[in-house]
């Protein structure tokens, strides 16, 4: 008597599992957080409007890369679209995981994306950088800005920090006065991606770079690199104890709680700082471009871009969704949902710019246009890890800054195969 229902139930469960992919027309892999939440909301709108069912698979930052790489390597077709952090693009593109969008644009009677997109945003989506065919479309316009408590900086004698020397001067004065409870500067010192992301703008501001122009030579251990490292160490000394393990959350919390006066940060934190339920600093934080060193300041660009997987099952539908989601109207909707835009028309839209919560838009637009991408290398995750270990050692005092630069040079040369 029990056997038949048991077997029937097993068969029903198996059937449900087998038909699961048929529930959605296209499947999109997105990160947790505001970027993924924004695209999830857009997908729901798209389903209502066009009747296309878009399934959103949301995963933590690192898992998005892992799942997409796995899907690409196995040609599983598990995802039609991946929302990628821009430094991942060379890995996916050069390993054949992404679809060339040229034929889809041609079919739509276009040469490529329209020129309302910011040029720096579009440059990221071509492989090779700024010259090859389009393999993605920009969706979230992240680029670092310099966040600071203007009143505290004024107290310390700096109206608006234009150079890293200004930042150090104010930060030192504020930390000295803070009695171990308040700090003039805070940064992401955690090993790997965090410390690299917060060091790169300094590195560029002093004229240093990881590679030469044609990527044939590693250029970390240089006089420019040493100057940047010297400033980085000076800033570490005025930052909170334990900054060696800080990631975005710790830095964000320190600014929102009003226990640190300044940091390099990403624009999606603006919403948190301006939210009275999460921040003590509503209306008190000012935004400006990355300060200059010996060279003009340059932000690290960190856009979220949408690409179609080469093994996707519904490529045309995926392209149609991407086109719709990155249209001027939808980028504006996305901006209202808290994601920085990638279009000039959105950045300059009076509906948005007149609102207090978008007061950082002029600074952000400039920051994107003055930004630098992380080196376009298919082995970037490994390079970033190696560089991040040496920077972490320098921040933790386990190595001298000189040793860290020398070891980072050797480690990156080994990975990149330039020596």
């Amino acid at each position: 008597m029990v056997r038949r229902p048991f077997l029937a139930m097993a068969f029903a469960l198996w059937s449900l599992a087998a038909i699961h992919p048929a529930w959605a027309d296209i499947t999109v892999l997105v990160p947790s957080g505001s970027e993924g939440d924004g695209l999830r909301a857009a997908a729901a709108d798209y389903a209502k409007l066009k009747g296309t069912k878009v399934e959103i698979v949301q995963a933590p930052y690192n898992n998005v890369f892992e799942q997409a790489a796995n899907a690409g390597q196995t040609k599983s077709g598990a995802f039609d679209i991946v929302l990628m952090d821009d430094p991942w693009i060379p890995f996916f593109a050069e390993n054949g995981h992404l679809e060339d969008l040229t034929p889809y644009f041609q079919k739509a009677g276009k040469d490529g994306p329209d020129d309302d997109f910011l040029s720096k945003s579009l440059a990221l989506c071509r492989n090779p950088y700024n010259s090859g065919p389009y393999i993605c479309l920009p969706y979230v316009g992240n680029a670092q800005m310099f966040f600071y408590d203007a009143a505290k900086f004024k107290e310390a004698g700096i109206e608006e920090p234009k150079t890293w020397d200004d930042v150090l001067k104010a930060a030192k004065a504020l930390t000295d006065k803070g009695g171990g409870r308040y700090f003039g500067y805070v940064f992401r010192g955690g090993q790997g991606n965090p410390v690299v992301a917060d060091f790169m703008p300094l590195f560029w501001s002093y004229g240093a770079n990881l590679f030469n122009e044609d990527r044939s030579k590693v250029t970390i251990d240089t006089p420019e690199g040493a100057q940047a490292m010297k400033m980085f160490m000076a800033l570490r000394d005025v930052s909170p104890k334990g900054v060696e393990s800080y990631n975005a959350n710790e830095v964000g919390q320190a600014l929102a709680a009003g226990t640190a006066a300044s940091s390099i940060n990403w624009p999606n934190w603006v919403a948190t700082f301006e939210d009275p339920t999460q921040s003590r600093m509503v209306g008190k934080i000012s935004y400006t471009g990355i300060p200059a060193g010996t060279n003009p300041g340059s932000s690290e660009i960190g856009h979220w871009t949408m690409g179609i997987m080469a093994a996707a099952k519904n490529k045309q539908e995926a392209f149609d969704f991407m086109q719709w989601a990155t249209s001027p109207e939808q980028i504006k909707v996305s901006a209202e949902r808290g994601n920085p835009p990638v279009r000039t028309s959105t950045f300059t839209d009076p509906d948005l710019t007149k609102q207090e919560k978008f007061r950082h838009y002029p600074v952000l637009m400039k920051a994107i246009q003055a930004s630098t991408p992380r080196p376009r290398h298919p082995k970037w995750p490994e390079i970033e890890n190696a560089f991040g270990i040496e920077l972490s050692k320098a921040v933790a005092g386990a190595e001298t800054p000189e040793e860290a630069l020398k070891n980072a040079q050797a480690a990156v040369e080994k990975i990149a195969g330039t020596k």
Partner: protein
Amino acid sequence: MTRALPTSTLSHRARGSGLEQWVERHLRILMLAPAMLVLLALTIFPSAYMFVAAVTRISPNPDLPWEFAGLQNFTRLLTDQQFHIGLRNTLVFTVSSVTIEFLLGLGLALLLDRYVRKLNVLKTLLMLPMMLPPVAVAITWKLIYEPQFGILNELMFNLGLPPQAWAGDARLAMLSLIIADVWQWTPFMFLLMLAGLASLPIEPYEAAAIDGASAWRQFRDLTLPFLKPVIAIALLLRIMDALRLFDLVFILTGGGPADRTKTLSLYIYQVAYRFADQSYAAAISLFVLFATVAFSTWFIKRMRLAE
């Protein structure tokens, strides 16, 4: 009283349909099949795949063919500094945490067994950390260690002591990991030791007491030898588990600062998923597997557990 069934129904039941008869005949195999398939899919296939992957060069590009690499991935272990750091950290963590957990677990078990035998609530409370998922433990300790807002530094500050960076300090990061692990897994040792103590015979202790043996002498010459099998099993299980440490370190320190807490499991994860080098990750995994099996075999022989 039973009612006789019509002849036609009886003959139908006896014959059944062809499918039903086949199912009846193969029911044992059919019932075992799902478990066997799961075993095949989750254990046998991945193990075989790992062996193949370790001697192959697998490109992240699916259009490039796999190439036979021989022992290249294994010889790379000899010169890979990151692997050496991971191995050293794993050994330091395993030896330190398991030793402390064992001593604390044994001490607590002796104390509770002898003096507070009836305090079941206390025993339950002591076991609570072990029941928590490792991820929850890691997040809890991350909050405790948080340098600016964490409770530990708040206490230090109020006591007039200098606050520390704990998991963020290169000198204290490994210690911070060990403390969190000891907090979670001492109850496991305690539980096994307590079970061992509860099963000890009373007679030898009575005889020893009559002969005037001190408490220390009784512990050294009776308790420890009687507990030896339990101690050996507890140590073996904890060592094997500590060698695989991943979740705690992934959440608490991410292997930093300055690589001071990078364990082999974390490194394998990075190589496989961040650097997309599955072949080398398979080679490191096989090394860990063989090292663990070799150690376990030696340990079991040494402790004469088979006897």
